Structure formats: C-alpha cells, structure tokens
C-alpha cells in the first residue's frame, strides 16, 4: 500500500486528493493535511464582502466529505519536509502541527511515498507596513476578501460607510492591491464593481468617491501581461476593455502603484515614474501579496535543504526553466509541464504552491529600483487542472512504476475562464465574462497576440452573471463529491 500526502485542501489540493482517492480506491492511502476545517469557494467571497451571501453560503466542513471519500484528513499545518528520511529510517516524511482546538500545537511525523504540495499562498499582509498587524494577519486599517471571515468583516465595514453616506457624509473608497508585487487583481476588480453596484442599489452612489489602485502598469493587465480579446467582432486590448468598465462606472484609477505604507485612513504609494503619492480613504480593501507558506526542508542529517526544494519566494521548485534570464528570452516552454520537483521524483507541487519560472507581465520597476508588476495568477481553473494532472501522474507511478510518462498541464497550453460579476440578483446583475487561451502567451504559436483570439474573448452582460451563479453552485456541488462530481470539469 502506497501513501500519498496532499498538503493543502484548497481548489488544487482538494481536486488532487479526491481524484487520487477515486482512482486508487482502498488499495492505497490518501492523506490530506490542511490547517482549515472548512472548504471555501473563494470566488464567491466577493458576494460575502458586499452582504449578498453569508459565510455559510461559501464554506462547508471538510471532515464529513473526506470521511465519505475514505481520505485520511488531518486538520494541521505542514511544518517541514524530510525527503531523505532521518538517521534511523530512509522513509521520507513530513512534520505536521495540529490546528484542531483539542490538540492544537501537537506535532506528528507522517511518512509518505508521494507528496503533493498544494498549500496555496501565505497572505503576506506584513510585506506592506500597516497592511498587516505585525503577526502576519490583516491589520486594522483596511479590509480583505481573501478568506470568508475577511469578507464578513469587509461587509461590516462597508455597511458603516454606506450608513454614513446615507446620513449625508461623503465617503472615499479605495480598492485594489496593497503592494507592488501582488497578484489576484481580478478579485479586487470584481469587488470594486460589486461595491459600485450595491451603492447604486442603496441610493448612495453619488455620495461615494470610489477609486482603484493597483500595481498593473495598465488597466487590464491582470498579471497576464494583458490580453487581446474578441469583443463585438473586434480584437481588442484588455486595456481598452477594462478602462471602458471603469469609465462607464465613474471609477478613476491609480496604476503602476506600489503601496508602501498604510495608516489610518491613508495609503502611501510609489509610482512607476518614481514619484510618491498619498491617497486618503474611509474604506479600503487591498489585496496582500502572496508568498510561500514558509515550509522548511531538512536532509537526513538534519541540515537545512530548503533551498533545494523551494525558490527564494517560498514556492516549490518544479520542472520549470528558472534560468530563462531577461524578458526578451522568455518562452512559453519555460513554464512547467508535469510539476514534478527536479530533485525528488516523488514530490509534486500544484496550484499557487509551485514556483513560476518568471512573471507573465513585462517586468517593471521605478527609477528608485522598486519592482512594480503583477505576479502570475495560478488560481481557479488552472489550479484545478494542474491538481488533477498531478494526481493522475502519481496514480500512474503507483500502478506502473516511476518511469511512467507523466501527465502534462502547462499553463502555456491551458485556458482559463474568468467571470467578474457585479450584483447577485438574477436579473439586476451584470458580469464581465472572459476566457483566455492560453494563460501564458505563446508568441511562437500565436505570433500576433500570443493567444488564440478565437478562444480569448470578453463580454459584458447578464449571460456572464448567470454563468457566475451556476459556477458557484456547480463547484460547491463538485467539492462536496455529490453524485456525478467527476463529470464537472475543473
């Protein structure tokens, strides 16, 4: 009997663990180690953040799902990886630390035959002074929608702003990214338009000055270097598409901004031209930068070998080309295909946990040397597809030996769908529905725009909004492993 340990129970880890268990059955053991007791459909946190959904609508307990699937579930965080075992045994193992109330802090060693790292990111609030509380958590000056609890808090604060606006007090709202190296602009993008929509519904839009701030060098970069999409028969830059959305809704923007300090009611930022600025706010939702979760790796003799397994940013090294060099040399083939760690063939990483070879957007920095560019998105559909491919590879290795051909899921040959919806009502909402193919542009295959414009398109309307509703229910249904769950694509 082989044992697979999956570290992380988010989109990628949950997908990998549930498919691995389904394919391997009772013959082999699948263990999930995740510090969370609940699964969260993160895209719908946006609706929690504007009071259109409750926390309970977007989370469910993991324990009964894993019990039903026959997966060994450990509510704990992984602390360290020991891929060569220890002095007394060659068996590789990880050390986990319980986050369960009754056994909190208790550590345990778990041996593995195969290890899948799907820990997701550390929300690195403390990278920006004042954005965090100094202990790695959200600070007191801004809100976040990165977790369901954060989104509940965001809605509470937003309601206070709406109440003040109703009382005739003009309010300033600032939404975007809280550091020059953030990713996930899409979440902030969706949140700002949901706020705008709810403000109109509440009759307070005229009392709100809503402003966008982000590290993108142009609106519509989205961490993918922008894209050219089919809109109304035209091949249009996402810059024009995004600017139109902001202009229509009267939301001005500050872009190319590295937020370098947050204090009560004010952010300080540096722009790509090197100038410094300040922006006051009454309410602000700023996405933090992501980092690796801080896993350590140790050799048999106890020496630190974290650098062997992980890149300096804390994400795990996989089969990517990390020495591609300057932007001019970047190719689609730099991106990983199998997500296997180059040093240890029985370790894989998927979702946000893998270290990308480089940015997708063109690297930029201010004259002061401050890097200001979005980092590559690896969430949602790509995270699920990669998780499934990795599970497939591991299952094949268990059944057919280590030299089997591994499954491939390069982000340079993979598309993504993104639906940014404003509003929750079936007929009073609208969404920007976008697909991009491939996520990482391939200028050798598609010399014009780097992408296939037949399958890279964007559209605004009710239709996308309906799709967002369907995706919410469909993916929670799938994650709960209800009948037919394997038929629902990632």
């Amino acid at each position, binding site marked *: 009997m082989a044992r697979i340990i999956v570290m992380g129970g988010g989109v990628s880890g949950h997908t990998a663990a549930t498919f691995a268990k389904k394919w391997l059955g009772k013959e082999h053991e699948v263990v999930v180690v995740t510090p969370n007791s609940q699964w969260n459909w993160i895209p719908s946190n946006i609706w929690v953040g504007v009071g259109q959904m409750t926390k309970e609508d977007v989370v469910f307990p993991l324990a009964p799902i894993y019990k039903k699937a026959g997966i060994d579930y450990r509510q704990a965080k992984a602390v360290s990886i020991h891929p060569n075992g220890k002095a007394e045994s060659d068996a590789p193992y990880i050390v986990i630390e319980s986050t369960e109330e009754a056994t909190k802090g208790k550590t345990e060693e778990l041996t593995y035959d195969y290890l899948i790292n799907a820990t997701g990111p550390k929300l690195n609030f403390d990278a920006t002074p004042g954005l965090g509380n100094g202990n790695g958590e959200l600070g007191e000056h801004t809100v976040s929608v990165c977790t369901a609890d954060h989104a509940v808090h965001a809605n509470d604060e937003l309601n206070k702003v709406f109440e003040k606006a109703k009382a005739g007090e003009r309010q300033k709202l600032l939404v975007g990214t809280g550091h020059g190296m953030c990713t996930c602009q899409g979440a902030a993008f969706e949140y700002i338009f949901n706020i705008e929509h709810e403000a109109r519904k509440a009759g307070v839009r005229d009392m709100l000055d809503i402003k966008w701030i982000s590290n993108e060098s142009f609106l519509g970069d989205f961490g993918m270097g922008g894209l050219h999409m089919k809109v109304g028969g035209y091949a249009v830059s996402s810059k024009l598409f995004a*600017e139109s959305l902001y*202009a229509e809704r*009267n939301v001005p923007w500050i872009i190319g901004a590295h937020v370098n300090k947050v204090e009560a009611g004010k952010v300080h930022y540096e722009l790509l031209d090197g100038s410094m600025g300040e922006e006051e706010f009454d309410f602000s939702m700023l996405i933090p930068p992501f980092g690796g979760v801080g896993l350590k790796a140790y050799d048999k003799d106890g020496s630190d070998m974290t650098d062997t397994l992980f890149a300096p940013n804390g994400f795990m090294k996989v089969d990517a080309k990390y020495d591609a060099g300057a932007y001019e040399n970047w190719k689609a083939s730099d991106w990983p295909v199998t997500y296997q760690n180059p040093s240890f063939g029985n370790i894989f990483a998927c979702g946000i946990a893998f270290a990308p070879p480089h940015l997708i957007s063109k690297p930029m920095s201010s004259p002061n040397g401050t890097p200001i560019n979005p980092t590559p998105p690896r969430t949602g559909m790509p995270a699920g*597809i990669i998780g499934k491919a990795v599970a497939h590879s591991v299952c094949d290795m268990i059944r057919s030996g280590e030299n089997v051909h591994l499954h491939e899921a390069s982000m340079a040959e993979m598309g993504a769908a993104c639906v940014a919806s404003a509003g929750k009502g079936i007929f009073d909402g609208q969404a920007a529905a976008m*697909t991009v*193919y491939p996520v990482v542009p391939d200028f050798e295959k598609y010399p014009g725009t780097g992408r296939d414009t037949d399958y890279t398109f964007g559209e605004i309307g009710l239709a996308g909004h309906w799709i967002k509703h369907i995706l919410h229910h469909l993916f929670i249904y799938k994650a709960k492993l209800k009948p037919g769950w394997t038929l629902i694509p990632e």
Partner: protein
Amino acid sequence: MKEEEVNFQNEQFNLTMIPGKFARAMRTCKIWQFIRFLVINIKMLIVVSKSH
C-alpha cells in the same frame, strides 16, 4: 447630455469607450442574453476541453 457622454468630462476617461443606450440595453435584454449565455457556455466548454 446623453448618459454615455457624462463621464467623458473626466479627463482620465477621455480616451476609452463608453457604451451607448443600445449596447446597454442589449446587456440586459433577456432574449439576447439567453442566446449569448448558450454561446459563451459553448466557447467556455471548448476552452475547458482544450485545456485538459
């Protein structure tokens, strides 16, 4: 002033496009949006199938 012209008074918005009455109406026209719903779903399914 037409609705789509109001925000062009802000200089930052001056170089982009803002939908007019017809485009806005089509975004919420239930019949047209149902057709677009089918089209977008088919396109998304193709993208999903090409990605696996």
